[in-house]
Every structure is written in structure tokens, then in C-alpha cells.
């Protein structure tokens, strides 16, 4: 059952991801991207990470994608004129396939021998995923969390400065 679900969503994710790179119109690309994100969210749930699935939908499919589409609309980008270079395709495709091959090799041969922690499925069910995340975030990863806030501040300031029209 789970396998079928996995394969289903994986296939959809792959195809829609591929279509992101192939669609002529940026809007189509964006929609396919959203599809991919949603598939990923499903996969997160299957991986016992419901909180991640939630913010995947909210942050990515929601915030970021809205932003992107907003920009596409703002800039009034129509269908891209078909001027792809075949050699770029060939080279890009070749290199990507090669990369995929290499990635496969080290994933297959690699061993994930790291120390196995105590967060089993059972724990997640007992405590709830969000709580576990929150706990880790505010104890062990407090500093990264704070840095992330600075990062967002910088991004906001930057975006404001850059998109102001007048000096």
C-alpha cells in the first residue's frame, strides 16, 4: 500500500518536476512546481513528518509560489519565445544524467552508519511531531533559529531597497 503510494507520488513528482524545466510558459512551470511540492508534502507525511508537510505546503506551495507567480504577473511574462539551444540541451542533459548516475552510485554504495537516535515512530506518536521539532529548535538549535530571524530581516530590508523605484 505504502509502496504504491510512494511510487505514485514519486512518479508524479518526477514528471511534474521535469515539466517545470520543459514548460514554455513560466506560469505552467510554476504550477508544475506546486504539484511537485505537494507530492513532496505527501512523501513527508509518509516519512512521519507531518509538521514538515504542513509547512512545506504553507511556505513553499503557499508563500514562495505565490510570490513567484505574483512576480510573473507583475512582469507580465508571457510564453517564452522558443529559443533554446540544442547544444545547451544536449550538454545540460548529458551532465545531468551523469550526475544522476554518480549520485546513484554513492547512494547505493554508501552506508548511513551514523548513530541511530531515539526518535522512533513511537516517540513521534507519543509526543507529537511539532513538539519534538519545537523542542529541538529551542534547545539545541536556538542559535540557528535566531540567525534565521536575522536572515529574514536582511531579506526584507534587501527586497525593500531593491524594489524601491526612486532613490
Amino acid at each position, binding site marked *: 500500500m505504502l*509502496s504504491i503510494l*510512494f511510487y505514485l507520488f*514519486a512518479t508524479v513528482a518526477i514528471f511534474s*518536476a521535469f515539466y*517545470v*524545466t520543459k514548460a514554455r510558459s*513560466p506560469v505552467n*512551470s*510554476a504550477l508544475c*512546481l506546486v504539484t*511537485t511540492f505537494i507530492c*513532496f508534502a505527501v*512523501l*513527508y507525511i509518509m*516519512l512521519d513528518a507531518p*509538521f*514538515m508537510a504542513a*509547512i*512545506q505546503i504553507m*511556505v513553499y506551495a503557499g508563500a*514562495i509560489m505565490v*510570490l*513567484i507567480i505574483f*512576480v510573473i504577473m*507583475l*512582469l507580465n511574462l508571457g510564453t*517564452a519565445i522558443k529559443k*533554446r539551444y540544442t547544444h545547451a*540541451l544536449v*550538454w*545540460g542533459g548529458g*551532465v*545531468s*544524467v551523469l*550526475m*544522476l548516475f554518480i*549520485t*546513484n552510485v554513492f*547512494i*547505493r554504495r554508501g552506508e548511513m552508519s551514523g*548513530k*541511530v*537516535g*531515539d*526518535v*522512533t515512530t513511537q516517540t513521534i506518536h507519543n509526543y507529537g511531531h511539532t513538539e519534538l*521539532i519545537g523542542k*529541538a*529548535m529551542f534547545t539545541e538549535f536556538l542559535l*540557528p533559529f535566531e540567525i*534565521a530571524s536575522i*536572515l*529574514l530581516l*536582511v*531579506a526584507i530590508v*534587501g*527586497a*525593500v531597497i*531593491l*524594489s524601491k523605484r526612486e532613490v
Partner: protein
Amino acid sequence: MIGVYHYLILSAIIFSIGTFGVLTRKNAIVIFMCIELMLNSVNLTFIALSRHLQNMDGQIFVFFVMTVAAAEAAVGLALMIAFYRNRESIDTDDFNMLKW
């Protein structure tokens, strides 16, 4: 049974597709979307590994990656808008003032 490897392979495929997109597309926004694709595939890897290793660090990382993606999206799109205002285009072939 679906194991961690499946997820890893899937994320590798998506990662490669993202790379492929970056390499072949000329539209800056699409390229940006492809980069998001790559980041997402890494997220998948993190979460899969996090489950496999049974600790939360990976998922926390994903959380931050998402933050970063958002921040980058804000700045990146602002840059694109600024560029568009000057050049009426966001085709990467028009990024051609600086070369050699």
C-alpha cells in the same frame, strides 16, 4: 518495502532534474524555480535520513532551508524586478554586460 534508499534516489532524480533545468532554461524565473526544485530534493533527503537515523536534526535543517529559500526568493525576485525595470527582460541571455 520502501526504504530510505528509495527516497534518496528520488531526491537525486529531482536534484538532477533541477540541475538540468538550471542548465537549459533562459528564463530567470524558471531557473529560480529549478533551484527551488533542487533545494526541495535536498529537503527530501534530509527528512528521509532523519527518519532513517531517528533523530530530528535533519528536519530542523529542512526548516531552516525553507527559511533560506524564502529569504532568497524575496531578494532574488526583487533583483529580477530591478533588472526588469532597466532592461525589460529577465532572459539570462540579456545578462551580457559583464563578460570576458
